[in-house]
């Protein structure tokens, strides 16, 4: 299990969906996810990506003029046994 996770953060969900669609066309793995609290205090959509794909993703962002806030790495903090619901 990887220890870090990489997220692409966006100014709005439209840009997130644009990048998501482009990445799917390219066959690059990306999961739409809520932005982790440690990365932003706003609720919102981000893309969970694989580290090895970052370069291709950055290229895609540039090529399609997609607005992105940043790509951030955080320590993986997912635990289905934590039993902290909301």
């Amino acid at each position: 299990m990887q220890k870090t996770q990489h997220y692409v953060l966006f100014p709005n969900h439209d840009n997130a969906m644009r990048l998501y669609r482009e990445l799917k066309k390219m066959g690059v793995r990306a999961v739409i996810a809520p932005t982790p609290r440690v990365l932003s205090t706003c609720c919102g959509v981000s893309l969970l990506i694989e580290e090895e794909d970052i370069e291709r993703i950055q290229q895609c962002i540039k090529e399609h003029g997609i607005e992105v806030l940043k790509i951030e790495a955080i320590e993986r903090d997912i635990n289905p046994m934590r039993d902290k619901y909301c």
Partner: protein
Amino acid sequence: MADYRKMWEDLGMDVETHDQLCAVLPQAFGDVYLSQENRPEGMDYYNMVVADIHGIRPAELIEHQKKGGKVFGTFCVYVPDEVVFAADAIATGLCGGSQFWVPGGEKVLPTNTCPLIKASVGARIDRTCPFFRIADMYVGETTCDGKKKAWEILAEDVPVHVMNLPQMKRAKDVKAWAEEIEEFKNVVEEFTGNKVTAEKLAQSIKLINAKRRALERLYETRKSENIPISGCDALLISQIAFYDDPGRFTQMTNKLCDELEQRIADGVSVFEKGTKRIMLTGTPLAIPNWKLHNIVETSGGAIVCEEMCTGTRYFERQVDESRETVEEQITALAERYMGINCACFTPNEGRIDDILRLAKEYKVDGIIDVNLKFCNLYDTEGYFVERAMKDAGIPVLGIETDYTDSDAQQLRTRVSAFIEMLNN
């Protein structure tokens, strides 16, 4: 990040308190959903809906209002959305599924009220949910005593129309429900200024039937020996069905079903072969109540069906699309909706029949009868449910819980023991 603070402030929300809910959602969602292996790609749509749960759809509803449209908030699967959409209005579910809203509800309701009602009232009076702020009118019903009194409290703050749901299922009760729907239609027409014509109602009946068929198709895939989607994911879809745009929801759910059916053809399952198949029956699991599903599916079980309002009660059976006049269409609506089997009816043997039928259809190994604390109706009916399952030789576990995390470990112990018993 998309910043909806301005929109929330304009809605009169308590943005600071609401921020506490935003703070915990990503972690809970990550634990329950992003932890899963081999999730269907089509779940990304529902991830997006949750990620911006208080942003994207509320913004759409506000846009609708800016164009003069109305939004109706509903709390029950007996309220016919078709009537609302036929008046060019939007219906959105308002049931609260988070402990976050419960203390707010307890300010005005007795503590021994079910958490769903407390959360729903709390979300309104604490001003911490945009959907509760946006809805122009709430539509209540008489499905339990707690709700009946809650409507009176809410009506001091927001327009509320209460539909009087009969408590028996004789022919005259179906007729009475048709009359209630007729009265509701009149209220909706007056409130929106739009006439519900036979043509408009026929369109909205088709719209909502299509949503039901998409959900039915989704559930059909869960009958497969190779289960292509987790119960957690199926629950999330059911929860989102209550407030998403119905046309878009249907399209996205059908797209997901294409993927799931391909998985079945390819022999792909998200569970190991031999994982015990569990059906849940009981009270609704409103968003974001994912506790029991997560516990079951991380304790060696696979949830394959929910005989719940957030489950089969919501989508089974269509409204007859062949009726031509508004009166006939209303009769068709009454017939379909009165076919739902809720514990508020006496007697309610149809629900036992449903559970036994579903247990066969979904090839379940065991049933969990789960009821929200202080839901007297479902708790009492549990006597018949559990007896009928025992008579049919279906192992059953009765659980009473609420929205807090405090009983999670105890639930894990009980659920694990139940699944272990099924495995032996």
